[in-house]
C-alpha cells in the first residue's frame, strides 16, 4: 500500500518538476512547482515528519512561490517571451543533464548496497518537541546564525532595490 503511495507521489513529484522546467509559460511552471512542493510534503508525511511537512508547505508553497508568482505578475511575464534558442543549445542541455543523471545514478548505484537494512527502533526523533530541543540547544548557534543570513539577504534585497540618494 505505502509502496504504491510512494510510487504515485514520486511520479507526481518528478512529473511536475519536469513540467515545471519545460513549461513555456512561467505561470504554468509556477503552478506545477506548487504541485511538486505539495507532493514533496506528501513524502514528508510518509516519513511521519508532520512538522516538517507543514513548514515546508508554509515556506515553499506559501512564501517562496508567492514571491515568485508576485514577481512574475509584477513583471507581467505570464506570456511566453523567452527568445527561441538554437537547437544545439537545447540538445547540449539535454545531453549534459542526461549525462549528469546517468553518472550520478550510476555512481550512487555503485556506492549503495542492494538492500540497506533498516531497523525501526521506535525512538521519537522527529516530533516537534525533539526537533525544538535539538534546534535550540545543539543547533542554537546555526539557528542564530541563520538570522544573520536572513538579515544579509534582507539588507541585500533592499540595497539592490532601493534608489540611491546622494547626500
Amino acid at each position, binding site marked *: 500500500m505505502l509502496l504504491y503511495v*510512494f510510487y504515485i507521489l*514520486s511520479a507526481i513529484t*518528478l512529473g511536475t*518538476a*519536469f513540467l*515545471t*522546467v519545460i513549461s513555456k509559460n*512561467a505561470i504554468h*511552471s509556477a503552478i506545477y*512547482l506548487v504541485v511538486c512542493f505539495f507532493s*514533496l510534503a506528501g513524502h514528508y508525511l*510518509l*516519513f*511521519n*515528519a508532520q512538522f*516538517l511537512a507543514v*513548514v*515546508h508547505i508554509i*515556506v*515553499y508553497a506559501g512564501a*517562496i512561490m508567492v*514571491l*515568485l508568482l508576485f*514577481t*512574475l505578475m509584477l*513583471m507581467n*511575464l505570464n506570456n511566453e*517571451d*523567452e*527568445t527561441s*534558442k538554437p537547437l544545439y543549445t537545447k540538445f*547540449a*542541455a539535454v545531453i549534459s*543533464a*542526461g549525462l*549528469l*543523471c546517468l553518472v*550520478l*545514478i550510476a555512481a*550512487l548505484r555503485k556506492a549503495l548496497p*542492494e538492500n*540497506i537494512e*533498516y531497523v*525501526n527502533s521506535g525512538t521519537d*526523533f*522527529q516530533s516537534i518537541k525533539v*526537533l525544538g530541543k*535539538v*534546534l535550540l540547544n*545543539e*543547533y542554537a548557534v546555526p539557528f542564530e546564525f*541563520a538570522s544573520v*543570513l*536572513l538579515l544579509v*539577504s*534582507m539588507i*541585500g*534585497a533592499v540595497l*539592490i*532595490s532601493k534608489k540611491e540618494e546622494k547626500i
Partner: protein
Amino acid sequence: MNILETVGINNYIMLSALLFCIGAFGLLYRRNAIIMFMSIEIMLNAVNLLLVAFSSYHEDPSGQVFVFFTMAVAAAEVAVGLAILVSVFRNIGNIDIDNLKNLKG
C-alpha cells in the same frame, strides 16, 4: 511502521537524485531567469528530501533540523535573486538570461 521499511532508502536516494538532475536540467535548458530560479528550488528540495530520508534512516533529528536551515537559505537566495532579477528587468526590460552577454572574453 515506517515508510523506509516498505520502500527502502535506495529508492529515496534515487528519487532525490532524479529530482536534482531535473533541477539541473532546467537550469541548463531554460533561459528564463524565473524558471531557472525554480529549477534551483527544485534542486534544493531534492536535497531536503534526501535529508529527511536520511534523518528517518538514522532516526536522527539533526537531518530535519538541517532542512530548516536549507529552507532559510532557499528563502534568502530567492529574495536576493529576485531583487537582482528585478533590477535586471528594470534595465533591459526582460528576464532572458541570453541577453546578458556583455561580459565575456
